[in-house]
């Protein structure tokens, strides 16, 4: 466990440059939008803070790739693989580091963007409405975060596995890597579809329809969301994780 912690901190340390600069860039972006408040339409300025949040998704994929490309480029993979740790802990440390970074960026994006987004909504909200909104938030946010994290983690593991598959091909890596990426994503969706049917019995996620509140309807309607796609993605993600760990331990040459 302490090994995992050490590996995780090293991963964050190795991508320290990003951990420092990316939040700064996000902050600068939102600061720039603030300065445009009076010259650009509010509908544009209020929505552009979402851009960093959307970029976080491709960024997570790139970071997952970089987490393995970098050690192979600067030979630190030799040091990492000479440690008496199982391949899965190295893999887990990298996945957690990627998720941490994305969480950090998203948090910064939300915190610095919120004052702008808030302007889209009427400033005067009645007290009862506010309490209903807050209650809905408490129910919605944790469930949505769970969904987002599962998808991000599965995506990150898929990219990492695809990179390790590419490694098997030695110098054909640039060719095999995109192929492996497409194929493993396709498998993820195919297996996911099959699992979906098997997971139909799982009780749905119940969210609150916030839009109804915004429209002034004080009766909050529930939204039922099937967790099956999320759970099947989780299962395939775990499968890919095991496969990637096995590849690293038994197949991939340093």
């Amino acid at each position, binding site marked *: 466990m302490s090994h995992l912690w050490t590996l995780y901190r090293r991963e964050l340390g190795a991508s320290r440059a990003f951990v420092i600069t990316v939040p700064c860039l996000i902050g600068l972006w939102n600061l720039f939008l603030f300065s445009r408040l009076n010259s650009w339409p509010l509908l544009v300025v209020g929505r552009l803070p979402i851009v960093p949040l959307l970029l976080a998704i491709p960024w997570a994929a790139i970071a997952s790739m970089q987490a393995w490309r970098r050690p192979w480029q600067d030979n630190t993979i030799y040091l990492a693989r000479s440690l008496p*740790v199982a391949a899965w802990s190295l893999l887990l440390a990298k996945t957690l580091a990627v998720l941490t970074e994305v969480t950090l960026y998203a948090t910064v994006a939300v915190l610095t963007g919120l004052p702008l987004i808030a302007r889209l909504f009427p400033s005067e909200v009645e007290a009862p409405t506010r309490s209903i909104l807050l209650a809905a938030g408490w129910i919605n946010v944790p469930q949505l975060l769970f969904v987002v994290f599962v998808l991000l983690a599965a995506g990150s593991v898929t990219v990492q596995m695809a990179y390790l598959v590419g490694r098997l091909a030695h110098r054909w890596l640039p060719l095999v890597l995109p192929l492996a990426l497409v194929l493993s994503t396709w498998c993820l969706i195919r297996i996911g579809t099959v699992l979906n049917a098997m997971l139909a019995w799982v009780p749905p996620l119940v969210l609150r329809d916030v839009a109804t509140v915004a429209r002034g309807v004080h009766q909050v309607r529930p939204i039922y969301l099937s967790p099956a796609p999320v759970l099947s993605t989780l299962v395939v993600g775990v499968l890919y994780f095991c496969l990637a760990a096995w590849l690293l331990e038994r197949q991939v040459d*340093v």
Partner: protein
Amino acid sequence: MVMVPLLTTTGISKRYGRTRALDNLDLELEPGCILGLLGPNGSGKSTLLKIVAGLTRPDAGEVRVLGLKPGPAARARLAYLPEVDCLYRDLTVAGTLAYVSTFFADWSPARAVELLEFMDLNPRAVVGTLSRGMRARLKLVLALARDAALFLLDEPLAGIDPRSRARIVEACIRQYKDGQSMIISTHEVLHAEGAFDRVVFLEAGRVKLAGAAEELRRRHNCSLEALFGEVYA
């Protein structure tokens, strides 16, 4: 008590594309000796050590090291010094030692400090700012600060200026304790040959010549370095 061989390889082969790095290699090493793994570049020395350390798998054949299959459990008891420059550039010297030391139960902080001094390394220096030779020394400190059963040192003299080579060999000898074993791969025999108990000459992934260092000196009436020249003539 039956002596368990420290390392046995039976018929291991490894290819990289068309290059044959190891070709049906059989090797057995008893514990308690310093082995010189000699050969020119590309003779398979690094590949062999990488396989023993579990960084690479052979295409065919069996490896047993310290009675184990190569892997995390074996790595806990062996100290592997890679040939390549594998250090994290963003860490300091002390930070590198702190990082690596957390993983090994046999790490000796006292010896690490002693080795740093012996190798003339400043603990506060950032690894990325060190010269190539300095980084090579730091790598050696990482390996030698451990009380491992087996040391795998891949080209520890490469990238080291001639004057410091003697110092590196001396550090290896200082560290060596009764019952421990070392495999030192090198293509520069001159500075290290006194330290070898046994030597294996590799060529194209096969054993060209092997034996006890003293016996080879007596039989061929020449130094191992001279023998190296003859073997690969």
